[in-house]
């Protein structure tokens, strides 16, 4: 095959995706406005709104079927998420693991990889942090303990995610599949530790680890319940944004995700980039698990991450793998998760009702996701 001709064939693939050109905010705004004004844009906007209204209407019907007032329920969700005492800090704390696990999906997605393993990576991060934290105990000053736990959490998550990347590169094992399997192995590992070697002897027979020593717990800030972990998560999210949008590594990932052949012809180390994207992603989720443990849970508990890894996958999907939108989606889902106990208390609805609400919110873009051309 002629080298020159393949070059020209690949060129559009390399340069064409509009994301590569990084439009400025103003040009993007103009784009959105003109698109909205055009009739086709208006119609699509109308359809989108209609789908959301139908989805929320279905949720309202579900609530009605339980003889609860849907307006009251929506109001209660807003109250518990935004207005009641201490609600915002609680949402933010809950968002820490969800947002980081969602970014763990978005980073490999840039390289065209599907990470369904946020759950397992969160768990392994929390497990490693617990191991280090309990082992260190009071022997080192707090901030050294935080660093050690953070490194352990990030590292464990990176290993868990990187392993899937490695298997993809070495034996072409699909990473969506291996990460899913690794979730269950992670969960069983945690349960094994909690039911036997790590079980707190003073815990009254409950399957829980020893609590972290008090100075290993991430300190609260500004006299609120917000802790240092929130700041670390925000910094991590900013770093991810920078890496994906501004760094050479992020650019290379996008090229690999866009066209692997073109990437390898352009001399990019495709395999190394893929593994590193999975490892960085897994590390982010592991860090999320560590921060949730050291900031909120304070000891390892079974079911501590409570499907946050899967919720995070949906948040990443809802945010279309754009770091900023992914963070917003993560916050939204955290707010919904936080509202569960309130709905149980005041309306007698099962707490899992919020899972249905979350699903209805994500169903809407799924319905709208229709690709331009038919598959067949």
């Amino acid at each position: 095959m002629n080298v020159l001709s393949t070059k020209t064939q690949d060129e559009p693939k390399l340069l064409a995706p509009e994301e590569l050109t990084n439009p400025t905010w103003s040009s993007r705004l103009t784009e959105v406005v003109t698109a909205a004004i055009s009739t086709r844009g208006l119609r699509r906007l109308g359809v989108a709104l209609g789908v959301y209204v139908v989805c929320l209407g279905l949720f309202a019907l579900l609530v009605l079927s339980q003889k609860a007032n849907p307006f009251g329920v929506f109001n209660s969700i807003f109250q518990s998420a935004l207005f009641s005492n201490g609600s915002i800090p609680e949402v933010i704390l809950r968002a820490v693991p969800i947002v980081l696990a969602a970014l763990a999906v978005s980073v490999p997605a840039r390289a065209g990889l599907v990470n369904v393993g946020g759950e397992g990576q969160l768990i392994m991060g929390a497990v490693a942090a617990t191991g280090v934290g309990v082992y260190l105990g009071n022997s080192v000053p707090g901030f050294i303990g935080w660093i050690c736990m953070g490194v352990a959490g990030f590292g464990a998550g990176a290993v868990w995610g990187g392993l899937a990347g490695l298997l993809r590169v070495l034996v072409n094992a699909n990473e969506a599949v291996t990460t899913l399997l690794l979730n269950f192995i992670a969960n069983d590992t945690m349960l094994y530790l909690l039911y036997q070697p790590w079980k707190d002897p003073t815990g009254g027979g409950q399957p829980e680890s020893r609590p972290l020593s008090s100075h290993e717990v991430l300190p609260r800030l500004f006299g609120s319940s917000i802790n240092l972990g929130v700041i670390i998560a925000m910094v991590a999210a900013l770093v991810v944004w920078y890496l994906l949008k501004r760094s050479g590594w992020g650019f290379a990932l996008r090229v690999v995700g866009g066209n692997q052949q073109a990437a390898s012809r352009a001399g990019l180390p495709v395999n190394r980039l893929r593994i590193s994207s999975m490892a960085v992603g897994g590390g982010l989720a592991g860090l999320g698990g560590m921060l949730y443990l050291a900031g909120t849970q304070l000891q390892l508990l079974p079911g501590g991450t409570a499907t946050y890894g899967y919720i995070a996958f949906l948040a990443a999907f809802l945010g279309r793998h754009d770091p900023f939108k992914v963070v917003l989606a993560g916050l939204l889902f955290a707010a919904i998760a936080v509202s569960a106990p309130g709905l149980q208390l005041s309306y007698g609805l099962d707490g899992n009702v919020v899972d249905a609400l979350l699903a209805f919110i994500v169903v809407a873009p799924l319905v709208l996701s229709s690709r331009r051309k038919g598959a067949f």
Partner: protein
Amino acid sequence: MNGFEQALTTGIEGGTIILYPALGELIGERAGVVNLGMEGCMLAGALSAFAVGAITGSAWLGVLAGIGGGAVVGLAHAWLVVKRHADQLASGLVLWFLALGLTSVLGANYVSQTVTPLPVINVTGLSAIPWIGPIFFEHDPLVYISYFLVPLIGWALYRTRIGLVLRATGERPEVVSVAGRRPELVQMGAVVLGAALAGIGGAQLSVGYVDNWFDDMTNGYGFIAVAVVLFAAWRPWLVMIGAYLFGVALAAAGVLQAHGIEVNQYVLDALPYFVTLVALVALGRSGGSRAPEGLTKALTNSS
């Protein structure tokens, strides 16, 4: 009955709960559609079966309702994925959350109710065989039906025209289209049928195995079913073996502990996943995974 035999017996009974959705997942994946929402299909099936069983007093009507419950969730997945070309993984997860929420809310009233379970029937003659009899032939009828279902599905996949079209749809839908069939319909049918089978699995759980309903009762069985299909590399007989392997692993620790042998439940639980992972690596090593081509495409282009 010694501990080993008891572990196998319980393993078959529990493994059947996994076998049905695994067969369903197999059919869907052979047509090129992965359904991570099997957990949701099972929950819908389990609740429908239990509710109808409790109201009518007939577990069999319950099983029928379970089929319907699973199929409804499957239809939603099929519509989103095939007609709207939605991301398969996201759609499956969403439907899991949706079913989890809906069944928890709608099933709240059934939590403390009772149901007449499916009867345990000892197969005359066969159950008298030492060892094999008690392990394989002292169960409820859904277990026996699954014995026939596995060869039936194998035969249909490999020996009938519809099976050929289904497999071709999973590999190259364009070819099926050129041959004058409608791959979209094949995929939708496969997904709905698979989900209906998952509904039977849910029914086996709620009116055959534990005879109870509580929220999130499937506890990961649907995901295990997905893993079993991978373990089996998309072949029906291996799906059966895989389902029983997981079933025995889940049952063994409790039984062994009752007989005074200390094993950690979770080490055993993790074992089948680990074996599946090793199997995937081995398959990949031996060159060419056996995954349907269309499935691989669906799993890689999902961002």
